[in-house]
């Protein structure tokens, strides 16, 4: 069997075979450093960018949702021109009466039943608004809303009349005394 002298030679001089050439190790090292650092920082930048994007999207989503909700409510009340005038008129009447009651310093405990009725109407109004968001401003809902305003307007009217009556009676009592 022939001796593999090439192999023997390589084995004997193995270390010398790894010392022949002079690669540009410093240049390669700089490249390694720049690439490993890039790899280290890239994900951080990526995470930062993703985080900021998520935050922006969340803000946009929330603000858009709130705006849409407000718009929805407004739109439900004013969109249909056929109801617009009637709606504005009723709302104006209710608002005027509410302002009048506020200006008269009416005490809630003096008209407990009426205020309970008004609270009930407030709850009803919130249900109607929910229905508007669910079904849109259908004719049926618009009529319900108008009825609600009319009813509220009547109750506020009763409250004002009752208060007038109370004031009148107090005046008479005062004169008789």
């Amino acid at each position, binding site marked *: 069997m022939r001796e593999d002298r090439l192999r023997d030679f390589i084995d004997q001089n193995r270390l010398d075979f790894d010392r022949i050439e002079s690669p540009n190790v410093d*240049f390669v090292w700089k490249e390694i450093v720049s690439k490993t650092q890039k790899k280290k920082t890239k994900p951080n930048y990526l995470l930062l960018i993703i985080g900021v994007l998520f935050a922006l999207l969340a803000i946009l989503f929330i603000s858009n949702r709130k705006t849409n909700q407000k718009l929805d409510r407004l739109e439900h009340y004013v969109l249909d021109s056929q109801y617009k005038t009637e709606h504005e008129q009723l709302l104006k009447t209710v608002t005027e009466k509410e302002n009048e009651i506020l200006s008269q310093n009416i005490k809630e405990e003096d008209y407990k039943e009426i205020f309970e009725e008004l609270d009930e109407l407030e709850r009803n109004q919130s249900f109607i608004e929910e229905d508007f968001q669910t079904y849109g401003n259908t004719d049926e809902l618009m009529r319900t809303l108008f009825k609600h305003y009319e009813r509220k307007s009547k109750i506020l009217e009763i409250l004002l009349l009752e208060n007038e009556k109370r004031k009148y009676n107090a005046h008479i009592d005062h004169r008789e005394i």
Partner: protein
Amino acid sequence: MLKAERKDDDQIMIEQCIKGNSLAQKKLYDKYSQAMYHTIIRMLPFPNEAEDILQDTFIKVFRKIESYRGQATLGAWIKKICINTTLKYLRKQSPIAYGIEEENLNYVESTKTELRYSVNTIHEEIKKLPKGSRVVLNLYLFEGYTHKEISACLNISESTSKSQYQRGRILLQNQLKSLQHERG
């Protein structure tokens, strides 16, 4: 005692590399880059490309060092990454032809004469071998792979590996002979 010290030294270096200590990384690179470069350049005899592979090898080493479990020596572990990176590059570059061409390969090695060539000359002549036999010859002679391991590594049969090795040796011997003739 010296071995133990070396082991401790490597262990500390590895732990620091895992922590991303750049000084430890540089120390590891300084220790092994020269040998790894020669492993690469013998299989891929183009300095710029060999440096690129060296760079890729150490980037992989630093990324994977956490997975080093000490089954082999650190040098052997890095060498494996180095060889795999080189072979992957060679495969991408162009398919390595391992089929034996019918050449007039006359083996002229004498059993009595000593090898009269320098390490440098043999190194340079190995680099001139065709890609297929150059890779097999390097893996077998320099990296200590068996033909079975080479066949698995290069996805060739064991007999092809043996043939390529023989072919590489004959070509190398012929190259050395003609070099000798040129020099008179």
